[in-house]
Structures are given as C-alpha cells and as structure tokens.
C-alpha cells in the first residue's frame, strides 16, 4: 500500500499552498475554464502564444491541493513549448497519473514527476488533470468550459 506522503509529496504540498503563476495573465491570447463537477472545483487557465510557442501560462480559481499544485507545476513546465509538445507532455503526464511511473519519465517530465503518487488514488486523477484539460481546451480555441466528466 502506498503512503499518503507518496501522494502529498513536499513539492505538491508546497505548490498547493503557494501556487506559482497564480492570477490573471495580461495579454493572454487563449483562455479556458476547467470544471470538476464532482467537487465544484473551478479553475481558469490563461495562455499567451507567440510565434507558435507558449510564452506564458497562468491560472486562477479554487481547488484541492492536488489540482492547485498540478496547475502550478504545469504552468511552469509548459513555458516555451509548442501546442504539439504540450500534447505529448500531457500524454506522458496522464499515463503517469493513471498507470504510474514509466522509464524515461523523470527526464521527460521533470518536476511534473512529483505527481507519480496519484495513480494509487484513482479518485484524484481528475484533480491532477483538471488544469491540463483547461490548458489544452484553451489552446484548441474551445470557448466552452471543459469538464472532467
């Protein structure tokens, strides 16, 4: 059995309490709202795309420690990446939080690897994915709020 500290790693708790890139983004070119109807959590992700790459991403809203930490780490991790690279990163991240760590994860995911404990907590996968769904919806130009359901 996994320990609670596998889920709530120090970095996760820290980002949950003091989220980075928190607040609106001036000059955002894309934005989308993510909603988890299960718990009523709601976050908005802002992105500024320039020359085909993401120059900056920020988020605001309320949520649990996992969803806030995930948004916080994600907004840092996607900086400078193209939408295609972000999609690929999300695929790997999603595998991590649903199936667990795989070879090469640490190199490919960097700080995002702190969410490796989530796969032992199936009810929390949606919390970890919420910000990603919102970001990808924003970049795809979908105006409607995305839902984890």
């Amino acid at each position, binding site marked *: 059995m996994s320990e*609670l500290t596998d889920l*709530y790693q120090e970095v996760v*708790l820290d980002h949950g309490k003091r989220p980075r890139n928190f607040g609106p983004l001036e000059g955002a070119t894309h934005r989308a709202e993510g909603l988890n109807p299960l718990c*009523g*959590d709601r976050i908005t992700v802002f992105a500024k795309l320039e020359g085909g790459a993401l120059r900056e991403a920020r988020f605001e809203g309320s949520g*649990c*420690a*996992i969803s806030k930490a995930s948004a916080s780490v994600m907004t840092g991790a996607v900086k400078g990446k193209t939408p295609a690279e972000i999609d690929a990163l999300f695929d790997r991240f999603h595998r991590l939080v649903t199936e667990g760590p795989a070879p090469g994860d640490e190199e490919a995911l960097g700080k995002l690897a702190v969410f490796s404990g989530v796969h032992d907590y199936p009810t*929390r996968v949606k919390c970890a994915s919420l910000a990603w769904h919102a970001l990808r919806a924003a970049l795809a130009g979908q105006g409607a709020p995305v839902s984890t359901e």
Partner: protein
Amino acid sequence: MTAVKTEREGSVAQRRIGAAERGQRFDPARARLDFPILRQQVHGKPLVYLDNAATTQKPRAVLEAMDRYYAEQNANIHRGVHLLSERATKAYEHARLAVARFIGAPDPREVIFVRGTTEAVNLVAQTFGRRRVSEGDEVLVTALEHHSNIVPWQMLCDEKRARLRVVPIDARGDLDLDALEALLGPRTRLLAVTQVSNALGTVNPLDEIVRRAKAKGVPVLVDGAQGISHLGIDVAASGADFYAFSGHKMYGPTGVGVLWGRRELLEEMPPWQGGGDMILSVSFEKTVYNALPYKFEAGTPAIAEAIGLGAAVAYLESAGLEAIAAHEQELLQHAVERLREVPDLRIVGTPRRRSGAVSFLLGDVHPHDVGTVLDRHGVAVRAGHHCAQPLMQRLGVAATVRASVALYSTREDVDALVRALHAAREVFA
C-alpha cells in the same frame, strides 16, 4: 392482476412500538453483526463508515430476502397464471403493505414504487406540476434542497414560464419561517421542502411548515430521503400531500424508492410513463389506464429491490425507530462535541435541531484532501458540495466534509474520525 389489499396490517400506533418502549436500549455493537460489509478492513484499517447520508449499508435480512426471491420466487408479476408469478406478485405487494404501514399511509394504493427520491420528485413535477402550474405561477423550494428537489421544479418552471422561488435560511442553517410565510402567495402552486438537509443535518419543523402552507391552500411535497431512516414519518398526520424517499438510504437496496401521495391527488394526476402494467386495455384508438398504484408503475418494476425494501422496513421495525433515533441523536451530539475539540475545525451549519449528519471544514484544507487522508485511515466520509450547490453558495463555501451516522455507528467510529482528522492536520500543517 392482483388488487392491493386495502386493510392495514397494524396501526400507526402499533408500528411505533419498538425496543425503546419495551424498555430496551438499542445496541449498535450487536446491530453491526447484521451488516457483513462492516467487518472488513480498508487500506489495512477497520472500516469506519460515516457516509450514510449517501447510502446506508444493508443488513443480512435484506440481502437474504433478495437472494431468496431470485432463488425461489423469480417471475414477472401481475400477469403470469403460474405459481412463481403468484409468489412473486405476493412478495412484491407484501412489500407495498409493509411500506404503507411503516409510513402510516391510510391506503396502500397510495404507495407508488419508483426508482428513488429523484424519480418520485420528477413524477410529481411532470404530472401534478404540469397540470397545476401555468405561466406566471410560482413553485416554492428552499435553500436547503438537494439538486433532486430543485432541478425538476426548475425544468417545470422553464417549460411553463413559471417562477421558482426560494425560502432562505438563516446563519445557523435553519429555514427562515417568516420569509416562508411571506413567499406563500396567491400564485404559489406547490411547496417542495426537505424533511432533513442532506448537507447540514438541519431538521425542518415540518408540522409548522405544512400548517403554514395549508393555511394558504398550498400543496406540500416533502423530500424524505434523509428523514425516513432517522425520524420516520406518519404521512397521514404530517398533513403533507406527497412524501418521497429512497430505499438505499434506509438499509434497503438501490433502484427502488417510494412516492406516497394523497389518494385524491394521485387519482387526479395523469399517468407519467406509458407501457405495460399501467393499462387496463389498449387499442390503437384508445387506452384505458389502470387504477392506483399501477397507473404510475409502467413496465416491470424492480421486484427484488421492492422486496428488499420490505425487508429493510421489517428490520427497522423490529429494532424500533425511536430506539435507533435516540442512539443516533446521542452519537451525533458526541460527534459535534468531539469535532469542536479539533483545532481549526469549523462546523458548517448549527441548526436548532440536527439529524443524521454534520458538515465541517478543517482550516483551509480542501475537503477532498481531508477525505483522501481520512480514507487512508479507514474512515469513509463525503467530501464535496453534496448535490446542494445553491446551499454551498449561500454558505460561502465550495464544499464541505460531511460525516453521517446510521444505526450501526458507534462512539468508536466518531473517535476514529477525530483521530484521522488530527492526522490530516499534520499532513497539511
């Protein structure tokens, strides 16, 4: 077609005689032995099940009744000429009689088996509501309602261009009865109110509410989902017109629930779903609908589940609802006291009278995170908005943690919850 017997098996007074009146105290430790699921461990810890407002566990008597039905009686009801069909029909109708007696229904034909509280409310909204509500009319709900007692009325009001109005609550989480009085107007066609709040545990003063509505000639639907297993109901004495509840929140199976309605209203209402069993004769020119309760029971019903619900009623009656209620009340009191000892814990809702549940927040830790830590300590609670988003908004919180008790809950369960909350504080310190 088997007619429902109209005589009642025992009076309201008789059914209320339980263990308490016989001078016995309810013993939860002994009752636990009737619930096989409670014996297990989760995450290596003994299961502490405090999510009873979501669904209760089922006693062996219910499991066995359903098993016996499938092993010995299974057949479709109300139509076969063969022995099994006769047995199945008898068992199904016996469950109806048991429910009628349990809720004090003057006539078992007033007991309609549905899927659950949600379906019962929708049935009333789509039949009674569509007949009675017109453009400019008002339907009254309260700030304490579960989504299932809001959305069906909202849909009706949208369709009819009617207005949904809301009785507010005060800071404690009690209904504002003066506001209720003011909102009951000449255009009010129905008041839909819960007996007990699923999110806060508030017990509404039903007698007073019904009296005020009736004084203005307004019919009342009571959502009994949270009240039935803790307080019970005497529908005839309550003065209400409709009472809805689910089997699975009163130790019965999922998939079955009850709509009770006053007979003259049920007679006046058009059928809701069409199909088999709800007809007397069908031709392509004209269909003649069946009598109550079958008019509202189209298609093959949840036979095994209804039988399971009947067994749950028998279980509750033999334990004695008053004795169970006294035990749960004492336990809830203990829970509130123990929770107050936890630093940074804030109880959400302090109603004058509480039943079943207590909601709280632990510092600024999100309820989902609290729920995850509690789960790893074997403690099952609900974390979220409890399908009462308007109430959460009114209280200014996104979600709460809710602990809810049942007849098999013990002081040890509450103490385990408190220990796990201390552990959660440490994780998020």
